[in-house]
């Protein structure tokens, strides 16, 4: 049964110069699990706002065409009525939680619509998303993943038969993202909820969705079953969407093949006859000058009920000159605390942190600002001026550095911000903001740069771009530390990986020692990039990128074929 039909809709936001949606038509059947793909600005979110009536009731722009949701024409029914049909989880879902406690928020919509069993409905919604036992907790005590579950519960509290989720993977670490998708899968299969996700992580699309829509520049290019959608490699590339790594690898080896879209299919697709010993190529570790030392560092912070929560438990670690460290582990493992201790903003409860010979306890953070730069996960928290240039030059100006203008010019050029330098940083796109925050950090001319989740919330194309810029940092500083969930970045960039769990370092090694160690990955809740997983499961040497895999696979095949030929002769 057709649940949603969008017919020839064109929409232009008030004050905008051109329409965001151009003559869009799309039908969605009941019970589908559908992904909407498209690069930033292609109109995905706007399309979804048609469905709950925010357009045209709330955003009164130029609207033409017809949208029908479950038999209701959206232009004739109020947002209130449509809300019973459609639940919406935003990308910045934290801002949609409006009540202080969990259950209050989950039952907010049923209460507002005057349903006397609102509390039961809230509880039921929490149960359906598997978020139980936290009813009376405060919103601000929840972790990111828990907040997302709550937003989800709030959205389904009215039991709508359509659920829209805007980029679930962008804000969560991979493990939590998978949990969310598992919940969505249950809602879809058990309760028959039609699910629409805005998503460009194609590996998730391959795993969970059954239909995919490609949008480009305000138009719906096509709607196809997922398999057909994801094997259109060239077309997706041209729209800056990257198919799953297995698909890309298979395509590069032979575009004519039937391409795999899931890891399991990939393992069957690629065959390696000769099992090669998985030799761990150990990079020689050369002891160089040590920059930062942690000696038996304990750290805890106070929670709202005045109890202390232990974050770091007796940490010993030394950062060396030339280190490119990836700090990995689940949320709450203590990564951010470890980094913040190096800035002098917080002091250890017990033990010593030494930065370039200075004990952080003895000096104010301003002193360490000359040595260490910390780049926040949320770039907006670094914007203290009203345009990009002023923000970048703030540090140099405060220190009355001579000829700082020239320095600022070259940094702006390095991060491709020259054309944006007069813009307000807060109004730029996610990728631009991230570049600005990097530029601000580099302008401080530090010895050590600390980056907190530099590639979170970015689409894959932008993520690649930022990764490239991060690569360029190693020329300018003595050491870089990145706390991240982005295993692709870890695999391609780091020369040292520190794995943390519950406030302790459980491993300190390099990418071979980490990615070969399946138990470790599981213990720390890490998920290796698909291509790496594939090469491991095929028994090849570990490959960290699609290109490397393609090259290595060709070599192995050649040798295999050669081997087979010599055997038959």
């Amino acid at each position, binding site marked *: 049964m057709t649940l949603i039909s969008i017919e020839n809709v064109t929409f232009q936001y008030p004050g905008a110069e051109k329409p965001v949606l151009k003559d869009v038509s799309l039908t969605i059947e009941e019970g589908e699990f559908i992904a909407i793909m498209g690069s930033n600005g292609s109109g995905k979110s706007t399309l979804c706002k048609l469905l709950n009536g925010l357009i045209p009731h709330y955003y009164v722009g130029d609207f033409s065409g017809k949208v029908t949701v479950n038999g209701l024409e959206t232009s004739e029914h109020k947002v209130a009525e449509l809300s019973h049909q459609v639940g919406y989880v935003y990308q910045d879902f934290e801002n*949609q939680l409006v009540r*202080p406690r969990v259950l209050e928020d989950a039952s907010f919509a049923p209460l507002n619509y005057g349903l006397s069993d609102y509390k039961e409905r809230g509880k039921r919604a929490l149960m359906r998303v598997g978020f139980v036992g936290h009813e009376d907790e405060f919103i601000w005590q929840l972790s990111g993943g828990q907040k997302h579950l709550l937003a989800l519960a709030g959205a389904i509290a009215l039991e709508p038969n359509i659920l829209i989720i805007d980029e679930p993977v962008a804000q969560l670490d991979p493990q939590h993202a998978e949990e969310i998708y598992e919940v969505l899968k249950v809602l879809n299969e058990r309760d028959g909820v039609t699910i629409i996700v805005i998503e460009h992580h194609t590996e998730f699309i391959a795993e969970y969705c059954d239909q995919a829509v490609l949008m480009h520049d305000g138009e719906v290019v096509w709607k196809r079953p997922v398999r057909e959608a994801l094997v259109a490699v060239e077309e997706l590339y041209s729209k800056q969407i990257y198919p799953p790594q297995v698909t890309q690898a298979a395509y590069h080896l032979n575009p004519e093949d039937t391409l795999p879209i899931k890891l399991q299919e990939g393992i069957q697709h690629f065959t390696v006859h000769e099992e090669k010993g998985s030799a761990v190529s150990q990079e020689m570790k050369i002891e160089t000058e040590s920059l930062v030392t942690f000696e038996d560092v304990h750290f805890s*912070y106070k929670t709202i009920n005045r109890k202390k929560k232990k974050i770091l438990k007796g940490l010993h670690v030394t950062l060396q000159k030339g280190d490119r460290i990836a700090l990995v582990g689940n949320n709450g493992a203590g990564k951010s605390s470890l980094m913040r201790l190096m800035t002098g903003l917080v002091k250890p409860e017990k033990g010593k942190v030494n930065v370039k010979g200075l004990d952080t306890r003895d000096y*104010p*953070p301003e002193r360490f600002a000359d040595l260490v730069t910390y780049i926040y996960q949320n770039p907006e928290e670094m914007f203290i001026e009203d345009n990009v240039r002023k923000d970048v030059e703030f540090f140099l100006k405060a220190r009355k550095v001579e000829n700082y203008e020239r320095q600022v010019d070259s940094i702006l050029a390095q991060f491709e911000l020259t054309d944006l330098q007069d813009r307000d940083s*807060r109004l730029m796109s996610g990728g631009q903001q991230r570049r600005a925050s990097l530029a601000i950090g580099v302008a401080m001319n530090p010895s050590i740069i600390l980056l907190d989740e530099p590639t979170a919330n970015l689409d894959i194309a932008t993520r690649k771009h930022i990764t490239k810029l991060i690569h360029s940092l190693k020329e300018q500083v003595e050491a870089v530390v990145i706390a991240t969930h982005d295993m692709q970045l870890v695999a391609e960039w780091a020369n040292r990986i520190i794995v943390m769990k519950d406030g302790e370092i459980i491993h300190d090694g390099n990418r071979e020692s980490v990615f070969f160690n399946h138990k470790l990955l599981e213990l720390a809740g890490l998920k290796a990039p698909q291509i790496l997983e594939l090469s491991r499961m095929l028994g090849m040497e570990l490959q960290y990128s699609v290109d490397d895999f393609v090259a290595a696979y060709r070599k192995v095949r050649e040798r295999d074929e050669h081997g087979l030929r010599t055997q038959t002769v």
Partner: protein
Amino acid sequence: MDYARKLFDKLSVEQVKIELLNTAYGNGNTFLARLDPRTMFIWYLFFGLVPWFIHDEILLAGMLLFMIVTTIMARVSPLIIFILCLGLLGQGGYLLIVSFLFGGDLTVMMPLILLTIKVSIISLASITVFCSMDPEKLSDGLLKIGLPGQVSFSIAYGYRMLPSLIEEYHHVFLSFRLRGKAPEKHGIFYYRSIIYFVKIAMLSFYPLLLSTAKRSRTTVEALETRGSLYAFNHPKVKAIKLQHLKIEWRDYGFLAFSILYMTFVFMIARMY
């Protein structure tokens, strides 16, 4: 010096956040916290207003004693008490100095003490009431006595946002510190450092305003779809929302005790 630093550590933004939230939400299981908000309003109406019209020392002293007891019962956070004392002492002291400068003598002491007592009673009453009602209760109470839904919602929502706002403010503040340059010498009485900190404390508000304005877009949309506008216009919703408010024996008991106590104090005051 070391002592000053310790005090400074205690006064971190993080600490202020914890104290604020504790004051707002943390005292849910005291006797006072279980009272109906309307009881608290009536009680506060008396102890917040009447002291201004009383000049009898004994009567005032009796009220002050009662307020001290309720403040203890409400388990008010020490930081709040500390700030209150600082404020009272500061104000009293300054008036005393001014009166000396303009030719006053020790006779001004008595009226000054009286004024300070009045202000203390009212402040302690306010603290008792607002520490005992979490924002939810306050907003439900206001809704019950007929204020529009928008007002009561704003109070509850304001508190919901408070921790994230403080956190964001903190981050911006730290950004200023990390990229700025603290004065190299503290100056006499730390005046350079104080000016530096006050300046960035003020500057930090601007970025906060801008980013909050941006974030509110999602909130407003979510409120729309989650029916808060609908709720404001339908009295039935209000009734469901407030059905948990009940005036019980402990409310009557508390009010009765307050009246009895005040009568008792009044009688003592009459006798002398």
